[in-house]
């Protein structure tokens, strides 16, 4: 919430988001897997 308020203060739209499928989130964001 602190980040969305900071974004609003800068005139930047934002929303909260959650991803239940961690593996899918890793693939979409390009994060490396667990070592």
């Amino acid at each position: 919430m602190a980040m969305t308020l900071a974004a609003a203060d800068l005139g930047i739209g934002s929303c909260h988001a959650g991803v239940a499928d961690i593996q899918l989130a890793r693939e979409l964001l390009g994060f490396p897997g667990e070592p």
Partner: protein
Amino acid sequence: MAEPVTLINSFEVPSPTRRNSFIAWEKTRDYLESPAWIHQYRPLHQAVAPNAEFQFVNIARWQTAEDFMTAIQSPGFREAAAGLAGYRRTQRSTGSSAPDGPAPNGSALEKDQETMQTWEAITSRRNVRSFDGRPIAATDLDRILEAGRQAPSSQNWQAVGLHPGHRPGDASASWPRCGAAPATWPGRRRRSWSSHRRPITSSTGRSSISARRRWR
């Protein structure tokens, strides 16, 4: 006897959003004029120079400071002024006895205004789920990420922001206060923190946010 008060709002408005901010200001003005709260509402002034710090300056003269507070605490105002919440502004007030000077620092009115800006930010923020694809300035991203880092969390589980071009291990250089365990922690905890302090980078080059693994 209560004195009239003049409020001067200076708005920082990014160029691409000037039109929207003007529309938002008109909506706010229309609401404030309708119940005749405002003794005299002067036109919005726009800067001549396109790179001026404050693009819009709004001047309003109120019968009393109490009238002003009553107006901005009304539900109708919050709805009407929601479009202005995203713009940084500086507000100054002057009483009739000192028309050209700012209100003294720490005055009751100034404190109320600061509180109102916080409340306004909380109540007027809206979720946005449609984006136009314009990139966000790095300085703005830094500020947003810093807000996340400053947010309270359970067991100091803080977020780390990584910017395009960062390589694994760069995070501690960019976020030094996140990158080191507090020196006052017991050695076992410091070792545990360090073993879990593995920055996650984005191989796509996009800005990304990830959370450090939890330490125990």
